[in-house]
């Protein structure tokens, strides 16, 4: 583990009164490798290591901790601070309905997360959500959301005669307003951040609905590419938060730090399974522990 590696690296620090730069450099090499192996983006690793080095060099060697424990604490605290920060709750306004857009790359877990989040909002936040899928491309995508809606007893707006995402959006919004739903969650089709036409489609849906939340749904096992897609979605559409899915796997989840550090938006939910109750709020300390191994 990282702690064991740092112990070896810093064993010559015994008897010293300060954490020297030479020792910290050796420790930073170990930390860099550990974070890259945990899938943290290499640019973010650089920023992280610089931040930790700044905090560590010249610090008094504390009596209560061994040098490696002290460095581990600085690393853990810095990672938790980078991951946490602002409020990670869904924001609501008095508008009716509040619109939440679910966006992201293909297969990341948007449709499943739409079900999970609507169930959470209904049971834990006393909201009355209506769901709609504007994925007119993927075979049986709208069926999938309909089946999910049935399973969790949350209404799904359906208009099989419509095949244009924007028309569907307008019709669903109108239906939500007329039937008094206070929340409308829009499940969008998976798309590449480099697909200009489809990114414009998201901008149009946003313009149509003025959402209070645009959640980027990202797979926890994503590697170095996480930064590219998250940054592009944020720059072109504007995100208000992130949902990190498939955290019930054994991926270290470095993508969480990469995304949070690069776009500065909070991780609002974590998907921890395929069932519709497998949703957790984000705990920066738990994710920090996991990334650091």
């Amino acid at each position, binding site marked *: 583990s990282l702690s064991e590696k740092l112990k070896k690296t810093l064993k010559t620090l015994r008897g010293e009164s300060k954490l020297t730069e030479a020792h910290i450099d050796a420790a930073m090499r170990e930390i860099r490798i550990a974070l890259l192996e945990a899938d943290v983006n290499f640019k973010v690793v650089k920023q992280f290591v610089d931040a930790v080095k700044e905090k560590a060099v010249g610090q008094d060697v504390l009596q209560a901790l061994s040098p490696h424990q002290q460095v581990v604490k600085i690393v853990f605290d810095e990672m938790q601070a980078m991951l946490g920060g602002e409020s990670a709750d869904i924001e609501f306004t008095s508008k009716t309905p509040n619109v939440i857009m679910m966006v992201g790359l*293909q297969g990341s877990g948007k449709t499943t997360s739409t079900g999970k989040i609507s169930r959470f909002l209904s049971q834990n936040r006393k909201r009355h959500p209506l769901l709609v899928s504007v994925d007119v491309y993927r075979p*049986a995508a709208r069926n*999938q959301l309909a089946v999910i809606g049935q399973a969790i007893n949350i209404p799904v707006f359906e208009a099989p005669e419509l095949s244009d995402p924007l028309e569907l959006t307008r019709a669903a919004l109108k239906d939500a307003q007329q039937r008094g739903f206070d929340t409308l969650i829009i499940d969008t089709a998976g798309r590449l951040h480099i697909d200009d036409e489809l990114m414009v489609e998201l901008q149009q849906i946003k313009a149509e609905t003025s959402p209070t939340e645009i959640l980027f749904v990202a797979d926890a*096992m994503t590697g170095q*590419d996480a930064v590219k897609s998250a940054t592009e979605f944020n720059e072109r559409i504007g995100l208000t938060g992130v949902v990190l899915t498939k955290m*019930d796997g054994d991926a270290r989840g470095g993508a969480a730090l990469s995304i949070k550090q690069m776009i500065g938006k909070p991780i609002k939910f974590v998907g921890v399974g395929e069932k519709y109750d497998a949703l957790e709020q984000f705990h920066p300390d738990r994710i920090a522990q996991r990334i650091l191994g």
Partner: protein
Amino acid sequence: FRGKKTISPEILEELEEILIGSDIGVQTALDLVEKIRQQVNRKLINDTDELKKLLRSELLAILTAPAKSISGRAVRSETDIPLDIRPYVMMMVGVNGVGKTTTIAKLANLIKREGNDVMVCAADTFRAAAADQLTVWADRLDIPVIQQKPGTDPAAVVYDALQAAKARNTDVVIVDTAGRLHNKINLMNELEKMSRIAGREVPQAPHEVLLVLDAATGQNGLEQARQFTKTVPVTGIVLTKLDGTAKGGIVVAIARELGVPIRYVGTGEQIDDLTVFSPEEFVNSLFE
């Protein structure tokens, strides 16, 4: 790396970043850069053209080794399906959302175009509308699909499909399985049972097990490959979503450690977006 330059420490640092950024893994990246650094120090490599040449040959050696070592059993592409095995049973496996179902449609299309009778088996009886999704594809391709209602034991659907295939003298059966995380023991056991049932109904089945990996997967892809190859007889990898910005470098680590050949590459969401893996094109794209 455009144009011929002399090799400076900055170039080597940039190379390390490109390699790490492609997800080939830290250790592999550091090893490759170190190998190059030593050759530079011994004046065996003098400019970036020679550096690229060495790097290409190192990566190609890793990527082409598996195909050379797996002879006989597995096919290189849909054009190699052995005519004496009927039904030839293929199974698509992998974690959630990587593109298994879509890849089956693409592959079924290629196999049908070769003049084979293809049948698909909707053995994902768990996820919402999974069978519906495969059925839409099957209808578009005008090929039969065997399915059961949600919640049915997936091994039972495999059994049904193989009975039907034998009765109809179908050439190829492709089994779709539910996405599953490799650290879920019960789900991996379920997969092993499906494979075992197939082997009981058709000798040597499944003849081809393709592990589907998302090109954007990080180091966890190696663990996925380790666990799936332990559970079922994986014969090849399909690397999907290479039309995105991810490089899919994790297949280098997988080729190195497990020797599983990469069979196909997915390059989009349409039926024709599947090509036979080309190691040369893959290595070239790492530097684009």
